[in-house]
């Protein structure tokens, strides 16, 4: 358990590092929000206008003061106001966060279901050429750009079948198809990993024992081999979540859905520091939390793994 506490501390350090890294990355990048606000203004007083805005936003203070303010504010849950929307950045972020969370969560779920099913079906297929065909699917799936999958699904389901609306379909069907676009690459990589692991597990002695008990092939694969083969896949889910978050931007663009992805692109573009910091902090917290959960689940799946080990 002490080890778990240490991991928690590491997690806090990682979140702090992400916050700090994002702050200084955006700080050293030329241009600031005052430039974004005064964009398009011309004439002799542009320089004065810029200075005024800077003073108003507190951008004229020394960088350490700005950083300290941002950090202490963030610790109290106050990230400051979004520069363009003049509302608390947290409010702006959490307005579109549920949409993205739904998309990413459903995408991850579909990816796991598709990936695991495909791997099991590959193991259970006897017919040689059908098996070869199925084995070639995961590498193809990971080679498909997510935006292209999205476009194909959009063309088929919105323009050919008219099942969903092409622009920001609010129904569950729209969400499902958007998350399917997200799930293809994730499912492919899960299946690739799982197929390799299953093959290893199926040659190990305990599976041989299970076979000699007279268990059916389905039982051997699903109830015995799958559990052990799943372990590295669960570890990889930590990174898959990160891939999902990046993938939502593309999916949201293709399906014209409003979400965090678009918000972040605009915020970085306009140097809207509070919004960017909220986004980075939330993403880092998710990353750390997922990895902590993955670590906590390991000993439950494999009794040989223990915390103090």
């Amino acid at each position: 358990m002490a080890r778990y506490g240490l991991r928690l501390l590491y997690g806090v350090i990682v979140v702090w590092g992400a916050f700090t890294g994002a702050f200084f990355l955006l700080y050293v990048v030329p241009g600031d929000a005052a430039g974004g606000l005064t964009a398009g203004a011309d004439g002799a007083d542009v320089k004065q206008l810029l200075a005024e805005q800077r003073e108003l936003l507190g951008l004229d203070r020394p960088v350490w003061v700005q950083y300290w303010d941002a950090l202490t504010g963030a610790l109290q849950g106050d990230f400051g106001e979004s520069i363009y929307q003049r509302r608390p950045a947290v409010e702006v972020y959490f307005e579109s966060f549920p949409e993205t969370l739904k998309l990413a969560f459903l995408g991850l779920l579909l990816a796991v279901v598709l990936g695991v099913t495909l791997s099991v079906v590959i193991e259970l297929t006897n017919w040689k050429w059908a098996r070869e065909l199925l084995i070639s699917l995961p590498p193809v799936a990971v080679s498909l750009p997510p935006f292209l999958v999205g476009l194909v699904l959009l063309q088929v389901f919105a323009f050919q079948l008219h099942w969903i609306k092409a622009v920001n379909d609010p129904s569950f069907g729209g969400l499902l198809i958007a998350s399917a676009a997200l799930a293809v690459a994730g499912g492919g990589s899960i299946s690739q990993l799982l197929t390799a692991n299953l093959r290893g597990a199926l040659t190990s002695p305990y599976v041989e024992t299970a076979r000699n008990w007279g268990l059916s092939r389905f039982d051997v694969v699903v109830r015995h081999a799958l559990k052990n083969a799943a372990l590295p896949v669960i570890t990889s889910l930590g990174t898959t979540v990160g891939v999902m978050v990046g993938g939502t931007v593309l999916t949201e663009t293709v399906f014209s859905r409003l979400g965090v992805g678009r918000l972040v692109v605009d915020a970085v573009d306009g140097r809207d520091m509070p919004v960017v910091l909220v986004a980075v902090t939330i993403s880092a917290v998710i990353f750390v939390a997922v990895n902590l959960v993955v670590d906590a689940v390991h000993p439950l799946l494999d009794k040989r793994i223990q915390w103090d080990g």
Partner: protein
Amino acid sequence: MTTLETEGATEAGEAATPMSPSARLRRRVGLRPRPPGHGDRRRWAAPLRSPGLLAAYLWIAVILLAAIHPGLFAAGDPLRQDGSQILLAPGADHLFGTDDFGRDQFTRAVWGTRLSLQAAVVAVAIGLVSGSLIGLVAGALRGRADSILMRIIDIMLAVPSLIVSLAIISALGRGTLNIAVAIGINSTAGFARLMRSEVLKVSNAKYVEASVFAGHGYVRRLFKHVVPNASRSVLAAATMDIGTAILTVAALSFLGLGAPPPTPEWGLLVAEGRTFIGVQWWLSLLPGLVIVLTVLAVYRVGRSFNRGRTRVVA
């Protein structure tokens, strides 16, 4: 980046085939088994026995040729507009059809190859060099330096790569090569982790121990034994990463962060065709197909390099 563990699978495969004396020796001194057909004539015949691998090599050759000399495949000018040939369907004259300015989409796809490939290779080179250096330092020094460097790597992995890319691109300005720099910086963490674990693994091998007993100094041991053996795995992983980089370059270009519109570039072609996806779907999907085939080929070749290795960055 996802890591692909293939250890169990390869070990199971090896147990079935009888080991040659040299393979037994390699195992005894702690060397990794050579990939099948390594070091003899069969090595170069390997692609011939696998039609998929052969096709992958052929496609990569075609793509490289298109990148170096696009005029061979499409003699026309990728920017030439023709008002009388707007939004034509694919046909003998226009293999991929024409866009809303009457430009030939096939010519544009061919001429876009160079920029897309260049960006992917530059991205991997940046990630490979910087990541390997960090990983080597961490793995060679160990102790406190190692744990500090690895914490920094953890932080790099926790910040969404999209935000890092966006910040870097907004600092450097939009452009395909700036995308490459951003992707390279993002992939540094993965390469650093891989290099570190390889350095640690190789340092524990018996032949490195033997080098200690032979009286070799630390520097010689590091650069004659550890670095070459560790970097072999990392280089093999880098071939896979080129495929991933092609996808990411296309994705960021698709979001409009790459070269400005008239420039032919794969991701941008897909993005431009997006407006017409309802009717002239080929404008987006055919250049997209070129991306898919190229990534597929690079991954296939990468997998053949990575056979028998424990970890693959992809």
